[in-house]
């Protein structure tokens, strides 16, 4: 912290700038700093290191959502649906997830549920080949629900124990596209009543406050069980997730830290908080 030695108004202004420029957002920043100020007063904190540690702990607390550990063994096949707005990293993340669970002994099947965007099916097919997992796909323009139904059928009959479904990117503000996702879920349930066992919303770490709107709408429309935060290998801090976790109580399961197959990490609040406060 710029060689500052005392805990004063200027220090708190500096903390405000650090938090806001990390996309924590105004409301969440205010809450964090008000709580911090109260503690400093109440416990008469004088050392900077202790203040820093307190802020870190506060952030970690907000990010630590009490949730069941993610366990793909609790159903066979275990079905995961991946959703999110355009370009956030869904398809690439699915390749990483398939690879991750393949190395843990699962038999993943990926599903080309994006039948709309140019070369989306080819993109996932290339990834599937690289990872060494089977893919269910149809022609571009096919009904995504039909592809998904086929895939669940194949999973059951061919013994794939993990199914990861790619969907087309979509703006949460487009109700017809949100309806399409709901339809996919209804169709899934016809084949496997509990499916999808997990629905992951992918968020891009470079996104600012609009992430709130994305989470809120996707949650209301199709219910989200987990978040994945991508592109944390850039300079964006993804601070918006602090308020999101606090408000919606959805756990962040993984983070994306690059464009390669191995660039997936389980989300760890402590590391995230440390990186944010830099």
């Amino acid at each position, binding site marked *: 912290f710029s060689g500052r030695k005392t805990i004063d108004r200027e220090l708190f202004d500096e903390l405000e700038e650090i938090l806001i420029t990390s996309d924590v957002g105004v409301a969440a920043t205010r809450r964090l700093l008000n709580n911090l100020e109260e503690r400093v007063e109440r416990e008469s904190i004088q050392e900077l290191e202790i203040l820093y540690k307190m802020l870190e702990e506060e952030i970690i607390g907000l990010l630590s959502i009490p949730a069941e550990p993610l366990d793909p063994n609790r159903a066979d096949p275990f079905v995961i649906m991946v959703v999110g707005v355009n370009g956030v990293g869904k398809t690439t993340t699915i390749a990483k997830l398939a690879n991750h669970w393949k190395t843990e002994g699962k038999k993943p099947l990926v599903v080309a549920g994006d039948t709309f*965007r140019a070369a989306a099916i080819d993109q996932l097919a290339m990834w599937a080949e690289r990872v060494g997992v089977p893919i269910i796909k149809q022609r571009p323009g096919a009904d995504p629900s039909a592809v998904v139904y086929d895939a669940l059928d194949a999973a059951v009959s061919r013994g794939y124990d993990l199914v990861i479904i790619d969907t087309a990117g979509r703006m949460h503000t487009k109700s017809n596209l949100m309806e399409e996702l709901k339809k996919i879920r209804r169709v899934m349930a016809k084949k496997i009543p509990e499916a999808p066992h997990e629905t992951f919303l992918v968020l891009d770490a470079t996104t600012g406050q609009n992430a709130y709107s994305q989470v809120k709408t996707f949650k209301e429309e199709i219910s989200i069980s987990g978040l994945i935060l991508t592109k944390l290998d850039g300079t964006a801090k993804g601070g918006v997730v602090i308020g999101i976790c606090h408000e919606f109580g959805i756990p962040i399961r993984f983070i994306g830290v690059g464009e390669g197959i191995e660039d997936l990490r389980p989300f760890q609040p402590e590391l995230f908080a440390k990186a944010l406060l830099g």
Partner: protein
Amino acid sequence: GLTSRFEKIFKYLRGQGKLTESNIKEALREVRLALLEADVHYRVVRDFVKNIEERAIGQEVLSSLTPGQQVIKIVHEELIALLGGTPAKLQLDGPPPVPIMLVGLQGSGKTTTAAKLALMLKKERRSPCLVPADIYRPAAIDQLKVLGSQINVPVYPSQKDLKPEEIVRDAINFCKSNNCDTIIVDTAGRLHIDEPLMEELQRLKQILEPREILLVVDAMTGQDAVKVSETFHEALGITGVVLTKLDGDARGGAALSIRAVTGCPVKFVGIGEKLDAIEIFYPDRMSSRILG
């Protein structure tokens, strides 16, 4: 939005008799809040509010019958001026084929925007060609080929075992022999902190000598917009910005941050996934959107 927030403040203020400077500063705090919530960069907001403060606490507001509306008018005017006043055009002068290069972070919308620009130019009676220079992302070349065929625009037949430099060099000849007057090069998404990939862009620029280097930026980009645009601008000399995905509900404050810090004008906005979903950037519409 800001209007309703101001109404609350100024209703309360009117009840206090004569309007004072500190009353106006309350309103300016609301402006600051609105801009930060719209993802405008922290420092850009600080400078912007400081710059309008003088006008805001002046006579035009203090002696106005509708001080709230007066402050909003000032904020709007200053935002529009900062965003560029009048729409900035695509520069297509020079001997054909006029080169345009698209750059930006991963997933921002470059490939789609390349095809949108090609369609737009085609409607303006130009004959563009598209060049896929992304050899890294799986099926990236296919993606641009599919889009090109949808709008009947020639696409250079890139192969992923070639270097982007070789592709661009050969594509210029391909373009000339196809009588294209504009060559639109789509590059791979990359991080501004990836030095080898930023150097690749500098080499492509040397070969292509683009008339326009457009930075494609996602409208939902937050505070990172400043670092990203500064770095790309420093490395290449950005001539314009395309702000994509404005059909969502992101406020788009990144537009203001980028313009304020780099001076680069937003030239186009992407407003959907279809290839006709591109528009000229209008500063007044953006100002209203940012203020919310």
